[in-house]
């Protein structure tokens, strides 16, 4: 929800809810998404039931796979304090940290789509920007030797962000300068990125043996991990949270951010008010691209350390759903990214223990998105009266300027 809308809303709801950003507006903002998630899980359970699996066992395994088992964590803690041996403890927190690892690229990518939506731009190109960012950071990571970490790591991060930014800037410029629609151009840029990465992985960036993968990045370019193997929890998660805060600050606390939101809400009015539309389009697409690029960067430097074909599981496309789910607000995006991360990560255990195909998670995610996109379904289903204020966020402006 934009700042203007929420403050207006709070004013009208003064009698029922306390002032400020909390109170009624938060409840209303959370109600539909929460119910959508629950409904998605219930329908997913019905699908499992129909296909002959036990949804209770499945969701139990999903829960254990995404949060870990509380009793194991407890006994791990006991063992650690009793003997100083952390093996059990490490093992017990593995599922939880792994969920955070999975959520990290979702946060970055969701922010990328959200910042675009705020300016009324539909960045479908996050997937391509993700790849370019990953490849740029990997290149810096493996090609420069003997740099101290304090220089190498920021350089690799910056390179990834810059690569994504350039990939996003091009459609932004084309839109601003020639009125070419960003949806078409970002899709085109995706294909260029995919084929470019195929070529790079088979050609200039290929590791020494036959496989179409890049060499490993040097340790000095890796995002530090907080625990020993096999835990992969790394600094990337906190960088993602920092990025979310910066996006919030940019959108809601700076003049530039106000301009961006104004352009998104009504470009004609913004132009009349003397705002530079062209500048804003290019700026927002670059920022969006940089964030998507950082998603790929965090994945390379924090988790994989190399790039191969099939590097992404469609983060760029899930990003659109995340922004939608999070109502294009950084806090919402972080929460929905965590939801996706926990679902995806827990799915491994669900697949293994309960024998449920991993695709069921895609079904649940799809259902949640449908319910978020069409809140009327949820409102009708749970008999919730619609709000007086139109809560919808501006997504895109459609064709033309």
């Amino acid at each position, binding site marked *: 929800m934009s700042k203007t809308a929420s403050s207006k809303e709070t004013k009208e709801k003064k009698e029922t809810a306390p002032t400020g950003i909390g109170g009624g507006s938060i409840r209303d903002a959370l109600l539909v998404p929460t119910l959508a998630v629950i409904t998605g899980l219930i329908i997913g359970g019905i699908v499992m039931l129909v296909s002959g699996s036990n949804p209770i066992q499945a969701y139990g395994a999903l829960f254990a796979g995404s949060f870990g088992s509380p009793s194991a964590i407890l006994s791990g803690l006991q063992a650690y304090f009793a003997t100083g041996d952390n093996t059990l403890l490490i093992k017990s927190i593995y599922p939880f940290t792994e969920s955070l690892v*999975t959520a990290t690229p979702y946060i970055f990518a969701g922010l990328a789509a959200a910042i675009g939506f705020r300016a009324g731009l539909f960045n479908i190109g996050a997937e391509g920007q993700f790849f370019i960012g990953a490849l740029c950071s990997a290149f810096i990571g493996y090609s420069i030797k003997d740099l101290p970490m304090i220089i190498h790591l920021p350089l690799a991060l910056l390179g990834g962000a810059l690569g994504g930014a350039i990939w996003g800037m091009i459609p932004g410029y084309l839109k601003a300068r020639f009125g070419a629609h960003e949806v078409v151009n970002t899709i085109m840029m995706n294909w260029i990125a995919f084929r470019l990465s195929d*070529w790079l992985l*088979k050609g200039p960036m290929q590791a020494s043996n036959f496989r179409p993968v890049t060499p490993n990045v040097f340790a000095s370019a890796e995002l530090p991990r907080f625990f020993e193997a096999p835990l992969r929890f790394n600094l990337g998660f906190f960088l993602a949270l920092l990025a979310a805060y910066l996006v919030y600050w940019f959108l809601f606390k700076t003049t530039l951010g106000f301009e961006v939101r104004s352009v998104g809400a009504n470009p004609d009015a913004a132009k009349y008010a003397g705002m530079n539309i062209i500048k804003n389009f290019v700026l927002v697409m670059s920022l969006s691209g940089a964030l998507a690029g950082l998603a790929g960067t965090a994945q390379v430097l924090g988790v994989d350390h190399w*790039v*191969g074909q*099939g590097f992404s599981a469609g983060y760029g496309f899930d990003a659109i759903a995340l922004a939608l789910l999070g109502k294009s607000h950084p806090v919402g995006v972080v929460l929905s990214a965590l939801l996706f991360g926990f679902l995806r990560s827990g799915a491994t255990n669900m697949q293994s223990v309960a024998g449920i195909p991993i695709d069921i998670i895609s079904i649940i995610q799809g259902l949640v998105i449908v319910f978020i996109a069409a809140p009327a379904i949820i409102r009708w289903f749970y008999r919730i009266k619609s709000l007086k204020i139109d809560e919808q966020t501006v997504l895109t402006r459609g064709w033309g300027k």
Partner: protein
Amino acid sequence: MKKLYFVSALLIIASMVLTACGGGTPATEAPVATEPAMVYKVGMVTDLGGIDDKSFNATAYAGVQQAIDELGVSGKYLESTQQSDYAKNIQQFVDEDTNLIVTVGFLLGVDTAVAAKANPETKFAIVDYSYPDCFGEGFVEGQTCGSASELPNVLGLTFDIDQAGFLAGYAAAASSKTGKVATWGGINIPPVTSFMVGFEYGVNYYNTQKGANVEVLGWDTAASDGSFIGNFESLDDGRSITESLVQEGADVVMPVAGPAGLGGAAYCKETASCWVVGVDTDWTVSASEYSDVVLTSVLKNMNVAVFETAKSIVDGTFAGGVYSGTLANNGVGLAPVAGASDELKAELETIKAGIIDGSIATNP
């Protein structure tokens, strides 16, 4: 009123969470209950193709299923949807005390090596790849490359697919009316090109035996280069490269490009102008819609290799290193040739025996 619905919604959330927590315990306890029977556990991690790719993963899992049926092991698979899933899926199996973890494809090479090093008690087999791998974390080229001595708990399942490709080349040359046969690949890497090397050698063998002059388009072993589309996914690319090779005169085409090869099969079926040679699996079964244009298929019997490995776990004879699938151990093979004369069938049998005893060379 609104409040009531909110409260009821909260109740639903609470009950969901409770069921989720409640479900957690039986789910984690279930495998423990089966432990005393000492059932060997086999777990397979797929690559990005998924379990129903009708190719690598499906064939390898057929081997696991055979082990379940015949050896009484318990088996399951985990699908990978992205690169970072490899390590996670392997770790999942490690945590479940799986006895044999089968990983499919060279892209899992690094994560398999890392996990094998960290868990020396667990046995691993990796399909279509063999170490030394000088690519993983902490592996130094020329020193610790994850060789058999470094990774005694890993078995690389490789296939001398040129042996089967040789038979296919001979059969293709014998079946060609135009005197030109062709092959093309996805990416120019050894797992792909060894099909093509064998194919060319088989055609050349036919020429010397029969005094014929059948030409191979799309691959040249001497130059180590040929026709490649650069990926394994695009059916359109597969179709157009097949079209151009057929227009150059080829009437038998062997596409070595996984799913993209089906684009070539589609072209042959629509124009009825060419035969196609399937790869990896028997295409008259796995791609049955094209069975009337499938001349034969070059079989990479990953199921045999995986089953043999599972058997060695049960027997206690597992040893790391490299398994080579050959015509002799049925690790590779040739599917029946469509419309083959008895003469051709007999010749193929003779050649097969010749390859097995080493009197016929199938590669440089």
